[in-house]
């Protein structure tokens, strides 16, 4: 049999390349209405009066009064209203939907709606902590007694997912049942949220995924808000309705990566780091939503790819009157990995050590305890991965040359890991994934709620099942998830899809193989936590993740000595994601993830001013074009994980999280200055260069 990693033609190439794939905006239903959103014009205050214009026939205004169930979007922490009732907590908060047959008239009605506010002073400072976590390892704060302390502060910005397909839904009523089709990552998040908002019975809401034009976390929880609003509108208008955002609306109001401020302190003993004290603050925006989980993942990543005996780790989610932040590939880890990678480098230099040798000397090893006293059970291949990365990039020679010259060239290396699957007890306690395989004569259908959003799930899952059953991939069916047919295998997030859901599917396929002679078979599997995995959410103790993927990124840059423009010359990466189910798919993730990670580190600027996002379209918000990117060399190390299918672990997020520190270190190397925040823009480089000249 062929190695499972050997690439195959992606199953959706044909429909996507030819333009035949149907995305949500392509779905047309006869007689459908268009919906647009009336939004607040203040960042904080109360609505004291609403004046709605007289409506032409066939037009509707839909607001909180129309909600039959709860006016709250079910997420993880439920504090986001479907429609603002009285309280306004951020600029452009949704107040109502206006729907009708003609877009121009709908937009005119939105303009005619008058909302009178009692404005209050919005808070943009990070002082209203709504989630606070703390945990210790070893001596905790006691490790700081009497020792020398080195402290630095790091900052990371917003990042916008910038999927090329904006968010959207279309929905209709069929008798007393509502169907919603949308560009989504999590069909059951949407379904459960709509059920709560409508107060409907479980079988009266159906959610179907349309082809997703990119998501990156941006279509994890935000679509639930849109779906709830649209469902209420459909119930009122009793007509099919489309709600598709235009780019500007999408960028101004949808969730983004949390900006963070991270303080690191090292307790120094005998010339080495004895313990670390870390505080991470993230800006949650106006609602908490997923922010607590994002904060957890950030804190759990605080020791990076290293092991420290003593840790004192705390974090806060701050509520501000800004657009709510949420999921984005990496989910808290990119912020922390930037900070910890810079900090260890900075401390090593302060101690007069060779940063690379020092980092290698403190790398996490199999058998070490994680930040939460869990165990790194599986082999860690980092030393040989680093060696490989150094060899293919000529890192040592370049580092030496650039460090001792004024060439304005630099090379930087990040070492990192990523916990695979839901954080903490998520999989066992909250998600409880279920999968189903159905055999009808020679065809096998995969029934799961995992979504192909470009990462190749349709291809890799069909390949996985075909390979285990030793049948043709054409005999394996995988349709876009439809909640009327697929069980809840959990959200398509957290680098969990292949490792967790794929693991269950592969075990179902193995069972099916045993009974293959039957013409009709239904095999179901439910997630069971491996017995050795124990985690206490309250105290942050134990195994926060069932497995870890590992990586090394090396980035080489040139900085223009006059304009301080950064050019990315080349990248070299080595990843351990267990086993690639399809090498080409993983290499595609590797390129795309690193491009996003590097751009987060040097290119993508997003800020708010008095609660208003200043970059409202693709002209203002710069993501890389083909001209900004460079050749990327990637090497995969096999390191099979016992519970992953063929040994696969998480890969999607791993490829992003090391990008920012690698490019930031490369720029440090080029300009001979220390970097403490991203993105490292020409303006910031100029400041750093001038500062040291003064």
């Amino acid at each position, binding site marked *: 049999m062929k190695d499972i990693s050997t690439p195959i033609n992606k199953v959706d190439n044909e429909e996507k*390349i030819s333009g035949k794939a149907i995305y949500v905006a392509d779905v047309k239903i006869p007689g459908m209405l268009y919906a647009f959103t009336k939004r607040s014009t203040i960042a904080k205050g109360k609505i004291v009066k609403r004046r709605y214009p007289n409506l032409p026939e066939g037009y509707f205004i839909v607001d909180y009064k129309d909600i039959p169930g709860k006016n709250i979007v079910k997420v993880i922490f439920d504090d986001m209203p479907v429609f603002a009732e009285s309280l306004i907590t951020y600029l452009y908060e949704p107040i109502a939907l206006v729907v009708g047959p003609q877009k121009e008239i709908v937009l005119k009605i939105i303009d005619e709606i008058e909302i009178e506010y009692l404005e209050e002073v919005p808070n943009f400072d990070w002082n209203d902590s709504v989630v606070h976590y703390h945990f210790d390892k070893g001596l905790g704060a006691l490790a700081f007694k009497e020792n020398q302390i080195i402290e630095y502060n790091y900052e990371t910005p917003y990042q916008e997912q910038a*999927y*090329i397909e904006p968010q959207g839904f279309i929905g209709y009523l069929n008798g007393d049942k509502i169907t919603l089709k949308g560009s989504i990552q999590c069909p059951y998040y949407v379904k459960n949220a709509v059920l709560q908002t409508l107060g409907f019975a479980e079988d009266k809401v159906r959610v179907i995924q349309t082809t997703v034009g*990119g998501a990156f976390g941006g279509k994890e929880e935000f679509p639930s808000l849109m779906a709830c609003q649209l469902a209420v509108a459909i119930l009122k208008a009793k007509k099919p309705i489309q709600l598709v955002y235009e780019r*500007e609306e999408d960028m101004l109001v949808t969730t983004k990566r949390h900006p963070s401020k991270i303080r690191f302190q090292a307790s120094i003993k005998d010339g080495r780091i004895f313990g670390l004290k870390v505080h991470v603050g993230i800006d949650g925006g106006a609602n908490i939503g997923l922010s607590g989980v994002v904060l957890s993942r950030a804190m759990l990543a605080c020791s990076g790819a290293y092991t420290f005996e003593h840790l004192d780790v705390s974090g806060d989610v701050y509520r501000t009157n800004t657009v709510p932040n949420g999921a984005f590939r990496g989910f808290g880890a990119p912020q922390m990995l930037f900070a910890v990678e810079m900090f260890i480098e900075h401390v090593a230099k302060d101690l007069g050590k060779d940063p690379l040798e020092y980092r290698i000397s403190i790398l996490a090893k199999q058998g070490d305890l994680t930040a939460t006293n869990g165990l790194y059970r599986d082999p860690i291949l980092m030393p040989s991965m680093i060696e490989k990365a150094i060899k293919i990039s000529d890192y040592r020679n370049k580092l030496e040359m650039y460090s001792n010259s004024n060439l304005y060239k630099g090379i930087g290396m990040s070492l990192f890991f990523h916990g695979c699957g839901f954080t903490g007890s998520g999989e066992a306690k909250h998600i409880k994934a279920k999968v189903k395989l159905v055999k009808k004569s020679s065809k096998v259908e995969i029934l799961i709620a995992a979504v192909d959003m470009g990462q*190749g799930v349709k291809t890799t899952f069909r390949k996985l099942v075909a390979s285990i059953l030793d049948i043709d991939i054409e005999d394996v069916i995988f349709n876009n998830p439809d909640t009327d047919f697929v069980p809840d295998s959990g959200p398509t997030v957290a680098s969990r899809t292949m490792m967790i859901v794929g693991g269950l599917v592969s075990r179902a396929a193995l069972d099916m193989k045993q009974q293959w002679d039957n013409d009709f078979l239904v095999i179901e599997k439910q997630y069971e936590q491996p017995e050795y995995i124990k985690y206490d959410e309250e105290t942050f103790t134990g195994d926060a993740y069932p497995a870890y993927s590992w990586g090394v990124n090396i980035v080489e840059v040139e900085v223009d000595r006059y304009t301080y423009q950064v050019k990315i010359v080349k990248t070299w990466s080595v990843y351990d994601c267990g086993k690639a189910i399809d090498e080409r798919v993983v290499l595609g993730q590797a390129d795309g993830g690193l*491009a996003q990670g590097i751009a987060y580190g040097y290119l993508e600027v997003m800020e708010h001013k008095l609660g208003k996002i200043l970059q409202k379209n693709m002209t203002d918000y710069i993501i890389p074009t*083909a*001209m900004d990117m460079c*050749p990327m060399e990637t090497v995969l190390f096999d390191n099979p994980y016992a519970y992953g299918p063929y040994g696969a672990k998480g890969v999607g997020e791993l490829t992003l999280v090391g990008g920012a520190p690698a490019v930031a270190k490369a720029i440090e190397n080029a300009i001979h200055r220390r970097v403490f925040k991203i993105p490292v823009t020409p303006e910031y480089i100029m400041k750093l260069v001038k500062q040291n000249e003064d």
Partner: protein
Amino acid sequence: MKINFKLNNELVELDTTPNRRLLDVLRDDFGLTGVKEGCGEGECGACAVLLNHQIVNSCCTPLANCIDKEIITIEGFSKTKRYQVIKDAYAKLGGVQCGFCTPGMIIATESLLNKNPKPTINEIKIALSGNLCRCTGYNLIVEAIVEAARVGEGLW
């Protein structure tokens, strides 16, 4: 007013206002949904089509600019031999992830190879710089175009 143009090799006539976006006309009046709207302001290239064999963003093209001209969308182009070569190359090299930018990328590829059948890597990057992709980091698309130019030698 009556507006005539050639669309995917057929002469068409439309009674409409000339200031509409070509993008809306193609999607709404002709159901050509392979033409995507990603940004609506000419930055992302998802709506790219060929106008007299020049690549244009249909979101920034008023219908008035198309009178008596020839428009080719991905739907029309996908019936050609050149398309087959480009498609196979994108599939082979892994140039497609979410697929939303892909039809525009294919149009950009055709536009480039039509003018320059043997482009350098840098020429390819310049040709793609009006088409945003958030999934791939572009390298696999660039490699696909190199492959298409090689395999399709003589077609352009």
